């Protein structure tokens, strides 16, 4: 039987919360022509029905709290419970209250900015972007403003992106009005330096890289890449999605990157919430500081304040002060771990990945770019197995699968990121499961999973005849 929709639990006249003692007549204040004629068809349920509905839905959902979730490049680490209490302490602040009444919040923002600058090796920061890709857009617009300011806005029209990059990189560059050119990876899985050299020139605005890259490999020639970029007047952009592997051990700023975005929901344990909200602060080197979005948080003689006085700013990228309650959680994480804890977390994320990689190789999986991996690696099943079927098989065995079919340069890719918060026995159980799947009959794999709330879903039907709301008759 299908799980009912909240609309199907609705009964006309059934009531949940009453938040108001008495309701005035609308027309006393608002003329008829502004009023809606038909009430919205919202559900009418009592509170217990509401609780059962959403509790039931939560039981049809897995998260890090319930299941190993080794989704590559997403850093699904444990989200400490402390952070939820921390966020509640700041829930009742209004962004427009007088700054003298929000000094603690501004101080926290300023401090977090200092911590993130220290961890990335950058000189200035904005906490405003609401997600990683939003940070990317902010960073690329900062680069664009810089080139324009130097009179090179019209000539530098191209952004270089490795073929292994996250899809958001080319999409971001394109949203910022740039053309995008892919740079191939070499046989070792790192950026092909000769190919990069051929593309570099006065027509290039930026190179977007993540390091370690999406194959989980550290770009060992990064200092050479940043030297070449600098010589060509090209700005080097760091996609922070994979920072977890090197946090505390190496900094994008020292590698020669000019701009860095961070994913606080990945590296700094803010929960992903089923797809957000996230938070994507952007750090820059001093030469790019004048272009940061307004406002920045500053410390003055009379306390902390919001600085709107940046004449060369790219403008605003989001309303108010960004996803502040995400910043509180990241602050709590950094203060709990300190530098030794952050370094240990990074190193154990690497150790977990390398250990799991060895276990999987022993089970018959291949690793096409088998360099010293960092926090993640990309494996391939033996000939004849489809990554998708293995993913669905894993669901049946109680694990969330790795990222599949990414990066695009590896066929049948399984991109595995265990993170540091998983135990040795969890990794071993996962490897056992992946090993077991190779012994299952083809037929079984092709039709897995069996005991999940629903079986494989018809994606084609959803694409051809999308039904996007309950009242949509198609």
């Amino acid at each position, binding site marked *: 039987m299908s799980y009912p*929709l909240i609309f199907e639990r609705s009964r006309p006249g059934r*009531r*949940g*919360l009453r*938040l*108001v003692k008495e309701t005035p007549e*609308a027309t006393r*204040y608002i003329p008829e022509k502004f009023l809606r004629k038909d*009430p*919205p068809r919202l559900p*009418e349920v009592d509170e217990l029905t509401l*609780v059962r509905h959403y*509790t039931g839905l939560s039981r049809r*959902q897995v*998260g890090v709290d319930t299941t190993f979730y080794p*989704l590559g490049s997403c850093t*699904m680490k444990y989200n400490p419970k402390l952070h*939820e209490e921390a966020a509640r302490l700041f829930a009742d602040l*209004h*962004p*427009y*209250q007088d700054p003298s*009444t*929000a000094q*603690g919040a501004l101080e926290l923002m300023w401090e977090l900015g200092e911590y993130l600058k*220290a961890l990335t090796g950058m000189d200035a920061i904005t906490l405003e972007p*609401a*997600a990683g*890709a939003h940070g990317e857009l902010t960073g690329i*617009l900062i680069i664009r403003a810089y080139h324009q300011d130097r009179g090179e806005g019209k000539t530098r029209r191209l952004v270089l992106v490795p073929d292994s990059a996250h*899809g*958001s990189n*080319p999409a971001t560059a394109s949203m*910022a*009005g740039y053309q*995008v050119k892919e740079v191939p990876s070499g046989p070792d899985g790192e950026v092909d330096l000769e190919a990069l050299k051929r593309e570099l020139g006065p027509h290039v605005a930026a190179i977007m890289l993540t390091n370690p890259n999406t194959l989980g490999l550290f770009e060992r020639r*990064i200092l050479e890449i940043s030297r070449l970029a600098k010589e060509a007047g090209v700005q080097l952009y760091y996609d922070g999605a994979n920072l977890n592997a090197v946090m505390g051990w190496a900094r994008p700023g020292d590698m020669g990157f000019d701009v860095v975005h961070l994913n606080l929901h990945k590296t700094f344990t803010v929960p*992903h919430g*089923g797809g*957000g*909200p996230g938070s994507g602060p952007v750090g820059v080197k001093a030469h790019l500081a004048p272009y940061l979005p307004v406002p920045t948080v500053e410390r003055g003689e009379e306390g902390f304040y919001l600085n709107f006085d940046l004449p060369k700013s790219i403008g605003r*990228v989001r*309303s*108010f*002060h960004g996803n502040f*309650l995400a910043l509180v959680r990241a602050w709590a994480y950094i203060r*709990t771990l*300190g530098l030794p*804890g952050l370094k240990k*977390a990074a190193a154990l994320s690497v*150790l977990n990945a390398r*250990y799991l990689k060895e276990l999987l190789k022993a089970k018959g999986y291949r690793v096409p770019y088998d360099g010293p991996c960092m926090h993640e690696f990309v494996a391939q099943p033996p000939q004849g197995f489809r990554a998708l079927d293995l993913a669905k098989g894993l669901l049946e065995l109680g694990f969330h*699968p790795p990222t599949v079919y990414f990066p695009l340069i590896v066929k049948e890719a399984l991109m595995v990121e265990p993170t540091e918060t998983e*135990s040795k026995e969890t990794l071993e159980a996962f490897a056992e499961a992946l090993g077991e799947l190779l012994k299952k009959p083809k037929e079984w794999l092709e*039709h897995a*999973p069996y005991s999940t709330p*629903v079986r494989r879903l018809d*994606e084609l*039907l959803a694409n051809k005849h999308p039904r*996007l709301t309950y009242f949509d008759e198609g």
Partner: protein
Amino acid sequence: MDYTPHTEEEIQAMLERVGAGSLEDLYRHLPKEVLNPEISLPEPLPEWAVLEELKRLAGKNKPAFKAFLGGGVRGHHTPPVVQALASRGEFLTAYTPYQPEVSQGVLQATFEYQTMIAELTGLEVANASMYDGATALAEGVLLALRETGRMEVWVSQGVHPEYRQVLLTYLEAVGASLRTLPLEGGRTPAVEVPEGVGAVVAQNPNFLGALEDLAPLAEAAHRAGALLVAVADPLSLGVLKPPGAYGADIAVGDGQTLGLPMGFGGPHFGYLATKKAFVRQMPGRLVSETVDAEGKRGYILTLQAREQYIRRAKAKSNITTNAQLTALMGAMYLAALGPEGLKEVALSGVAMAHRLWELLLEIPGVEPFTPKPFFNEFVLRLPKEPQTVREALAARGFHAATPVPKEYGENLALFAATELHREEDLLALQAAMREVLA
């Protein structure tokens, strides 16, 4: 402390298996020039001490729960039932539902959310959410430009100034032009829209709180082949005519007013709704109903060809992470209240705001600015600089009188009231204002 489970023995065993002598060894292939930089961070603290430190910082703030502040964020009651359900670990710690078989919870909840937003706005489809109201507006306008193939945008000055700033940032990036229509008497003037304009943008209730009849603007936009993008507070749509009913093609807004904590400005969520005909130009995630291998009803992300991980540089938007959890809270709030409850909360704010308006206008030197009818926010002209008034009120324990940007006029301040206020709260603010303005 940290959150890793490894014992020293396990670390040693694992290091041995991967052929490393120590944790440092895992990094030995990095260029030595960048390895182990000096980083200055505070010493790690035990959990209780972190909490104590956070409480110290929180103690330096004066919570604005019963504030009279508006401007896109307002203090509303967050029902504990919503907070409790949204805090469930399965919702909190999940990722984008790429594996639908084990993500039916988030997927179905999103499908229900999409339905509720479509209902509220009077439009056919809504996406799974945007970052906030401002980015929803920017993406909504980009959608209109893709749909019309035009590069010119007209925006009413009645649209929240910060939303317009974000819109400008996004439009400059793609090389589109933006023209602002100044308000006349606190409302968007009736204008003729020329060919070449792809999107006309207005807000109702507008930034000053005034209600606007946007039907003539929608007609003018459509005559020119442009689309009307309406910004609307979703709570207001429990009572007010929905954007779809006055001809808007795209509706956007911020969901904070649906019972979300103010959180010093975030996270909230942005909503974006439009017509089904435009769905292939839509940014962001979309959930569709479908069936599984046994014919059972289920939900799945759909039309992914619009998205960056399929189309890369040709995607409709770069948005990946949106605001799923906060959107879920908005949906839970709507379901908890139902159509009647939503209407009651909205109207209670309207009544309180009108009472506050009367009381504040009794103070000598205070003049009305927002034209009637207004919703639950309004602007007054003060006899003093609003910045100093806000400070003086803050010193007396009141959060009120948001200074309104000078583009709207001199000495203007914004006030709001909600279902949280009682008559005595309004009287207390009136007394404080009398003192401050005396």
